């Protein structure tokens, strides 16, 4: 087992629901975890599917919370958005964009294929320097509260298993195969280098 805790990044598109749920659980389990979004903006559901609430990554969770309370407290209480934001602001102040973060990780977990593609594109477009590898794994999670919770547990289990391997890179392939069988979902997996 590596002496230092696994440095994990959990990435979804808006750094609100899926990545934050996983962030929440992983940090409770003692992981060195950060969460990100890859979108250009932070999008939250609005009064209609075609009218989402759009913020930039500088807006804090607190500000979003207040904004939504002002707009329609009942609606956003009912659909759980306020609850989610409330949880998020306890974890960190504001959403972060993966592309803007220069910190290095051992493991990046993405929550949908599109995000995975964006992460890969970003990592590959960076100039390689140290050749320190980073494993990127995609776990498809639908963007709703229930799936986010289930997905977060799956991610957590995965991270724990990886953390407990003696030689993560040698055992990763096999581990993922096992997880695929167990969870009946395919994982995209690749390695990039810093």
């Amino acid at each position, binding site marked *: 087992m590596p*002496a230092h805790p696994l440095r994990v990044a959990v990435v979804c598109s808006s750094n609100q629901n899926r990545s934050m749920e996983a962030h929440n659980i992983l940090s409770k389990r003692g992981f060195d975890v950060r969460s990100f979004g890859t979108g250009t903006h932070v999008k939250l559901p609005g009064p209609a599917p075609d009218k989402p609430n759009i913020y930039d990554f500088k807006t804090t969770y607190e500000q979003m919370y207040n904004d939504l309370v002002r707009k329609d407290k009942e609606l956003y209480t009912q659909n759980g958005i306020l609850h989610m934001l409330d949880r998020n602001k306890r974890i960190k102040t504001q959403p972060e964009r993966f592309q803007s973060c220069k910190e290095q990780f051992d493991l990046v977990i993405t929550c949908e294929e599109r995000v995975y593609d964006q992460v890969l594109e970003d990592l590959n477009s960076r100039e390689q320097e140290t050749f320190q590898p980073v494993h990127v794994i995609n776990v498809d999670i639908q963007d709703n509260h229930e799936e986010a919770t289930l997905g977060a547990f799956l991610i957590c289990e995965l991270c724990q298993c990886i953390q407990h391997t003696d*030689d993560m890179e040698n055992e990763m392939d096999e581990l993922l195969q096992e997880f695929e069988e167990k969870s009946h979902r395919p994982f995209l997996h690749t390695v990039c280098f810093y």
Partner: protein
Amino acid sequence: MASDVREQAHGSVASQLHSSEEDRAFDMTTSEKVVELLNQAALISTEEKLIVLKQVQELIINKDPSLLDNFLDEIIAFQTDKSIEVRKFVIGFIEEACKRDCELLLRLIANLNMLMRDESVNVVKKAILTLSQLYKVALQWLVRTKSVSDMQEACWDMVTQLKEDVLALLDSDNDGVRTYAIKFTESLIITLSPRTPDSDTPKKQEGDISLDKIPKDHTYIRYDTLCDEGKLALEQLLKFMVHPAISSINLTAALGSLATLARQRPMFMSEVVQAYETLHANLPPTLAKSQVSSVRKNLKLHLVSVLKHPSSVDFQGQISTLLLDLGMSQSEISRCTPATVQPRKRLHHEPYVEGKRTKMVEDDDDKEEPAPVVTPKPSSSSGTQSSIDLTAEFLLPLLNPENVANLVLISMVYLPEVMPASFQATYTPVESAGTDAQIKHLARLMATQMTAAGLGPGLELCKARDEEVKEEDGGMGESSSKDPLIIRKLSAVSLGQAISVVGAQQAAYKSPVTEEAPQIKKLPEPILPTTQPKAPGASGRKKVFKLADVVQPFSEAQIEKLANMAIKRILQSEKAIAQSGMSHVRVKLLARLVTQFEGGKKNDLLQFILEDMRGRSELAFSLLFHEYNEYLGQQPSGSLDSYEHCLFTLLSGLQEKPEQRDGLFTKLVLEAPVITDSALEVIQRYCEDESRVYLGMSTLKELILKRPSRQYQYLNVLLNLSSHEKEKVRSTALSFIKRMYEKEHLKDCIEKFALTYMQFLVHPNPPSLLFGAGEDTEVAASWTEETVRQCLYLYLSLLPVNHCLVHELAAVYTEAIADIKRSVLRVIEQPIRGMGMSSPDLLLLVENCPKGAETLVTRCLHILTDKVPPSPELVERVRDLYHKRVPDVRFLIPVINGLEKNEVIQALPKLIKLNPIVVKEVFNRLLGTQHSEGSPSMSPLTPGELLIALHNIDSSKCDMKSIIKATNLCFGEKNVYTSEVLAVVMQQLMEQTPLPILLMRTVIQSLTMYPRLAGFVMNILARLIHKQVWKYPKVWEGFVKCCQRTKPQSYNVLLQLPPPQLASVFERCPEMREPLLQHVHAFTPHQVHSIQAHIPASVMAVLEANSRKPEPEPQPELHHPEIIEEREVCCDEAEVATDLFFCFVMYIRV
């Protein structure tokens, strides 16, 4: 630099750093601080130690490099720390230190060398990363140095050695290590190749050394050597990529490295694109489905990044084709294609490749292939590249529909059984099939495969050309002329291992390779070591411990032996394990182990089980189930052989063992998942064993009832046993079948079987299957009593249950030969009796009586009426039959007592004409003198009436002889025909007019039997005189004879005759006259008076007149009158035959 970043995360370290202004003031304290920190570090826990050491590093490298030298040894001492992280830190420190001061390389490179061989892979990985950096540092440092010292030379030698070691790690067993080695190779190739203006170099690496910065006239560093090393590294990387069992992560890493290479060193663009092409067509079959998608995603990403590079212009066609195949739309591709490109990039490469040779190749190109070459290739394109093009050119016109269809058909044979995940993922329906573009693409795909396999005209051409070049080159540097050769050899080897999904040609030539089972799991073997890990070199470095190097694989025989011994030990530990209560584990283990092995062990275990089957039944069952499981696991191609062998051995063992009565056999049979044919044979043998027939058949019965899917097969076994030669087996089988016959769904089958067997009887010879498989069948064997019975056992046992079947018997009977008929008649008694005469079907049979089955019907009637009187229904049917269809009087016999009196009388003439034995039977029935002790049947005729009826038979209907015989039969029954009965008969006969011919015969017979009837007879005679008996010549004859016999009592009767008749008497018997005369003379006077008064003179005259004629005339016919003698029987011979047969019918007893 990794440590840099990490440090930023640790605020505690940063806070202890001091700003530069304070540097001088704290000069002393820095040194002191370092000492203090180092002292601390020796004592504290790993985590804190790391923090402290990082502080030290910061202090002596960045803050005050002058201290570096002082504390170097202290820090390096931590390289033996037991913590991996600390050792990794030391590596990081070495890197930083060397970057800071290149001279330190001299001292530290050996430490790096040591850490490179660390037992922890994580340390090794870190060392590889560091070497990537330090290789460049070392090279730069040496290039800068004008005169290289011995120390530096030694240092560089070690660096070179380390480089080789890391390249060798491409073959490491560890996936992660291989990944790091790939990245190292990438970096090495970049360094050892020249940067060109179109190189896409990251800003941070602007200052890095590369081949173009190395002076060709350096005293120590050889430009050519480095150049070759770079190319070699590229070859190794390319070779690594095409390994069929490459892991998905390694492949991903290698793909990325290639993209980097293509962008930073566009001169390699061609190799990279070609490698991508090959990979795309040959995705490793070991990849799982999701891995295939990951790899394809990566391939797409990297292709796009390569495409974006301006130098990709010559390869845009190939790249777009690949991207299209990977699912990218044409518009997306165009978006990624650089808009304005300088047409001739290749000019920029020229400084790299040795000018002279390049030109020659180009010249050759121009001369030898003037027209056909598609696009002007970059000059750096290798031999393989152009041979692919050539082969594709060559193939293009050949790809007409017919050839393609043939290729497809041929390749069908080589398709793997399971579709590889890679194929499944990559397959997209060919939209543009048949278009020129698609055919070109196909030709190119095939050319890639063929070239890789070392085939095709392109390759030949290139080889020839290369030869020429080589010759022309003459004294050229060896390294450069070797180049294309190496590439070719390499690709031939490596692609031999690639598994082709598309290329039929390759499969055809490399069939042993394609048989490699497509495994989804991990690498079966690490990459084949082509470059052996080097033997401990002059530098005296330690050899890495590798288990594989020091152990020898066991030989097959040894493995076998060890496995056998292991299993034996488990076997023998039975008691010990039983005591520990873990026998279920042992059982499971044994079963599992043995199932996986072939042959010997299995037999050993089976033998072991059979030694104490009762005690080891659990093991037996476990083994059996495992075998079956194994079979299921191999579906659909699995074979039951192994399972069958197991079941067969167990069952046979049980069967052969005497005295195994605890039902284990039954249990085994009933719990076996499948009963195989051979097992069924054992069951059959078991059933044939007289001592266990019941158990065997109960088992069989259970099978039939509880395994409906194959119940007919099991039933058949039981049915076959029903004609078994052993009586016990047969009767048990029959009783089981009879019980099963009640089951509606089995009924048909059983019935069919019984009838089929019976049908055999119509064949001229018994079918061979009656003799069992063992006996050598003589084809023309004839029917025997036994074989006939064999065909009938089952049928006959069913008959009493299902009466309808009787009609089938009749049908068969009519067609069978006489011998069989006889046998049939013999065996049907029991079942027919069982059916009883009230059976509607039997009655129907009697009513219909098929032609040819008369004897059968008769036999049935006899059987039915043997002990009991016939029922009115039966009588009715028989009567009907007799009158309307078959006027054979013999039918009537069995039911004769059921007929009306007049019917019997009517039939009598015919009846008595039959064979004497039959007639006797008839009389027995009529007279109630049957040998049965059952209720006496009520005859329609009293004995008297019968006798009278006999006398009254019209002589035109029946010859006298038969009648006489019949009456004799009556007289034979003394018990019935008592004197009283006879008296009544005589009385009645005498009163008839005309007198029955046989009257006097009967009188005489009666008299003979009962002499005391003489008085009565005299009376009769006297009355006959009144009836003028002399008018009936035959009767008269008898009358005379009777008188003769009854003299002297008859004298008085004679005297009552009228004189002419008396004379007639004397004519017939002259010897009577004298005694009669004397009788008259002897009358007492008193008598004379009374009698003489009655003796007319005429009578006296007759008496006396003839007294002078003394000579007696012997009259032979009186002594042997025809009517009285009954011995001879004259019938024609045919009559005799049928009658005899008929007698037989009546008297046979089973």
